[in-house]
């Protein structure tokens, strides 16, 4: 019981860290890492509430396993889009940036 609570609270702290990072950082990769940390915290809370004394609820485990894979897919899609937009920006706003400097 106390172990589960410790894991849950660690999960909450991870959510807090991730939330702070995702709002406070301006670099998109840092934002993405922060959102992933937040997701990990949610998984951790979900898993730590799965234990009921002697029996372990398999359903949260299965859902978290699914969630991890979907999170990877989402993260890589974000990375891909960010890089694509960045490359697009480099190509088209080069003159504007040069004038700024």
């Amino acid at each position: 019981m106390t172990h589960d609570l410790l894991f849950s609270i660690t999960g909450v702290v991870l959510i807090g860290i991730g939330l702070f990072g995702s709002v406070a950082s301006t670099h998109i990769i840092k934002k993405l890492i922060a959102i992933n940390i937040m997701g990990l915290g949610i998984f951790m809370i979900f898993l730590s509430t799965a234990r009921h004394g002697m029996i372990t609820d398999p359903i949260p485990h299965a859902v978290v396993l699914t969630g991890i894979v979907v999170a990877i897919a989402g993260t890589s899609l974000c990375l891909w889009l960010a890089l694509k937009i960045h490359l697009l920006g480099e190509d088209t706003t080069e003159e504007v940036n040069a004038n700024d400097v």
Partner: protein
Amino acid sequence: MFRKLILSESLSSQNEMTLLTRCALALVISILTIGLSAALILSPKAEPVLAIEALDKLALSGVENPVTAVLLNFRSYDTLLEIAVLLIVAVTMSTPSNKQMNQSAADTSRWLSVNDAQFVHPILTALLRWLIPLGILLSGYLLWTGAYLPGGAFQAGAVLTGVGVALAVAGRHHFTWHLFIARFVLTVGLIAFVAMAAGNALATGIVLQYPIEHAGLIILLVELAATISIAAILLMLFTQITALPNTSERLKP
């Protein structure tokens, strides 16, 4: 504005928050965190109704590991849709850029092409010679053991992806994803799953309810196809992102 937000270190430090805003944000989030913790501590523990149900029906699922039973039998919709989500991401990312096509001297008429001219350090080659067969073996073991112990299609697929990433990073091997065989490997998991669901619908009248006597075999076959697809899709996501032109140079400040 959106274009500037992205990836340059100097731009991102220009737009950073002031110390005061940061402190206020930290305060708000601390209060939120303490509130959430208090809610977790004070809320009564839920009764494990579904857990008891799932563990009771384990004998009907065809496997002995409750997580695998939930993933591929009781809630197989989840897994089906998850493979579909992965495939959608893979399709989104499957457009090769022109630079990327010209950039690599590798043979693009084969799914996995080998460029012998590329230098790979002999120690790395020696390591990979052991690591890659070991990874494939471990992946097969994880898939097989998923019926009894923790393991299954996702773990096996992730290990197989690691093998592919090791190959791709070493530099001598190059993956091409627009060929028919590559597309088949990417989709075989979803195809097998949907075919199995359709067969079940014809045989039993319910889409994803397996006949009990064949459930173990059906789950193993679907998991095998899913493992191959998951590994291929994750590997494709990796190689597509790293193959974007001059990514590493542009990430520098």
